[in-house]
């Protein structure tokens, strides 16, 4: 394996894991404080049991998210030293603010976890809110740094040198808002459906039904609202990409030839040799409309760009299809949940709970697919139109060994975390409330 490929795989692999840990660590505190709030209001023991159980989840995911995040902050430099040498100072601002937000989160978590019965109740609850808010702030700031790679601004690039650096402008790059909005909603959708799914399974198996139903409702409410809002954010993102990264958009749709009134392809198999998509459903003029709000607008095809600036078209196309497909599915599931609040007898149905069990991993699959679209879609650039990924990689050979080590460690970690969660649920089911 080439060094570049090994480095890219290692980066992709660690990010794929980190995103799951980080999203859960970022969103679960909100479920926890809602349950905590209900405990303070109603003094119903079930909510206390649930809060304490979720808090353990938060602690475990916070730490796994934090350590895998620490690993990433090193890996950026270890794998891409050339990139960090130039980009580090430019995108340092969101990272330093993220460091601060993360610190606040760790302090608030210290108060929250160890504050039961020691801190005033209201203050204790507020520290829980701070965990959630600073987590979301961290997420947004990191995504802003990623946005800069897609939409590099805040410097002048003259003869291979980065001059007149403006870190504030770099942080507030044109992509930060669309990406941060899309990712925050995605995190809430994915975590909401995942946590709801776990509790739905317990209801399905008729264990501690009252408790798990309450847990389900809290989690799914967040997930459903986010899933319903997500298409709006998706639309903003698509229009933004059409404007800034036409190659990425073309790859997402496997759109080879420039066309006015371009159709939208749903599904299909990409034949990169013949440059066609087989077995797809084509909606006439829809791509033009979605990208430019005009059914007749011209959408640039891949062939308008040099081939060495194309990403892996098939991979980007499939990932995009998976993301949009699952997004749509979760949108309907979200609506279904709100309808079920009116039709109480659905709650008695076995199939209702089974449905949400099956939906549990879907949000995360869509979220990962979305990041594959963003990251693979940006290739071959590490900084869009400025620096190629192959020019940024470390000169140290043998990265493949470090890649294998990471695979072993991260798989063990995920296995361990899953196992710990199962044990938490087991103990929760045997508790008195």
């Amino acid at each position, binding site marked *: 394996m080439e060094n570049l490929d090994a480095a890219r795989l290692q980066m992709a692999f660690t990010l794929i894991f980190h995103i799951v840990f980080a999203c859960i660590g970022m969103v679960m505190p909100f479920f926890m404080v809602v349950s905590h709030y209900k405990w303070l209001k109603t003094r119903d023991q079930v909510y206390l049991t649930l809060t304490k159980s979720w808090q353990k989840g938060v602690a475990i995911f916070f*730490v796994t998210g*934090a350590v895998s995040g*620490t690993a990433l902050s090193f890996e950026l430099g*270890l794998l891409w030293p050339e990139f960090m040498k130039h980009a580090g100072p*430019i995108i340092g601002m969101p990272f330093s603010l993220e*460091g601060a937000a993360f610190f*606040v989160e*760790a302090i608030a978590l210290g108060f929250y976890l160890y504050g039961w019965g020691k801190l005033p109740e209201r203050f204790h609850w507020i520290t829980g809110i701070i965990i959630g808010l600073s987590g979301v702030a961290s997420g947004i700031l990191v995504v802003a740094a990623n946005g800069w790679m897609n939409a590099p601004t805040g410097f002048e690039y003259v003869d291979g040198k980065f001059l*007149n650096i403006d870190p504030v402008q770099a942080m507030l790059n044109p992509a930060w808002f669309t990406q941060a909005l899309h990712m925050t909603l995605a995190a809430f959708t994915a975590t909401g459906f995942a946590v709801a799914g776990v509790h739905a399974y317990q209801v399905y198996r008729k264990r501690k039904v009252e408790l798990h139903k309450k847990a389900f409702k809290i989690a799914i409410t967040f997930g459903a609202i986010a899933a319903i809002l997500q298409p709006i954010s998706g639309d903003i993102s698509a229009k933004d990409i059409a404007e800034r990264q036409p190659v990425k958009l073309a790859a997402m749709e496997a759109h080879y030839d420039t066309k006015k009134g371009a159709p939208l392809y749903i599904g299909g198999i990409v034949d990169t040799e013949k440059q066609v998509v087989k077995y797809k459903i084509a909606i006439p003029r829809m791509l033009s409309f979605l990208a430019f709000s005009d059914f007749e607008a011209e959408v640039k095809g891949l062939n308008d760009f040099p081939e060495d600036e194309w990403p892996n078209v098939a991979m980007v196309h499939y990932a995009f299809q998976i993301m949009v497909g699952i997004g749509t599915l979760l949108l309907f599931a979200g609506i279904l949940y709100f309808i079920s609040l009116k039709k109480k007898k659905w709650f008695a149905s076995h199939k209702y709970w089974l449905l949400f069990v099956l939906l549990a991993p879907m949000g995360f699959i869509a979220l990962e697919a979305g990041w594959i679209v963003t990251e693979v879609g940006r290739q071959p650039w590490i900084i869009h139109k400025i620096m190629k990924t192959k020019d940024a990689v470390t000169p140290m050979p043998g990265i493949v060994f470090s890649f294998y080590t990471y695979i072993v*460690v991260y798989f063990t970690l995920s296995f361990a975390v899953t196992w710990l969660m199962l044990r938490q649920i087991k103990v929760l089911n045997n508790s008195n409330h």
Partner: protein
Amino acid sequence: MLYVVLFFLIFSLYLYVVLGGADYGAGIVELFSSEENQKITKKTIYRVMGPVWEANHIWIIILIVILWIAFPVYYNIMVVSLHIPLTIILLGVTLRGVAFVFRHYDAIIDNSQKLYDNMFKISSLITPIFLGMVFGALISGEIRLVDDISSLTFYEAFVQPWFNVFSILVGLFFAALCAFLSSVLLIGESKEGNENIYIRKSAIATIIVFVVGLLTFGYGYIVKNVFVQEFMKNPITIISIVLSAFLLFPLWKTIKKGNTVWSRFFAGLQVFLILSAVLISHYPDIIITQTGSVSLIENIAPDSVINVLGISLIIGGTVILPGLFHLLKSFKMIKILER
């Protein structure tokens, strides 16, 4: 603004060495304890470190982020030449953090605790050794700076800079320092009757720090290490080190009297003096290579970056430091109330 950034860089380094160091040391102390004492130590560590251990380790992230933003050239040399030890540190930090949480948050207490304990103890020892080795490598004079790194062999470019006697000695020295800090800290935190365990540990750790420190300098002197030579010539560093050694007397006195506040202060001050001596002796040329030194100050990011970073750090600091102080304070106060 550069000095604000430098202040936060050095401030984070000090805090990481003292707080993070005590944290690593706790695992080392546990590793070198008898089975019965291990149980006591584990409980004490949880009580002491529990609320703050995450915060202790964020200092290294702040450190890294400041380095890459403000001192990109310096950072670049580190991540290229010291790729291997930094990766090992990362794995150590990961496994240690995870093990700490697992052993305290696993809902069921069974045999898997043994695995978490071992993971925690071993990574607590290995991580600071490699941290020290990285620092040692930077001042060892073994790093090679060339225009085309492919002209060097793998060993010359990526192994020799850190895998040498001097760096390894610095690594061991740092681990010993961690154990020293932690044992002094644990004296005040142990339940009655257990203080003697940690008093004995602090005595052993002190001796190890002293011996390894002497070995490091002796070796550096014999092989004519640039850093050690300059260290010996500088009066400020000599005074700091001698003062640090003399502080052992008040330290022992306060430990014997059971005055934990002062004993911690003295132990912290000793480490502060040692670290200051090291930093001062070669400042601002913090990297010493085979061909010369790399100045921290001369290779900085543009002013606009430094200014924005300085402002971010001041804002971040005003939010974080009172919060952190409050966190440390409230849990200490609660402990006093509990007694």
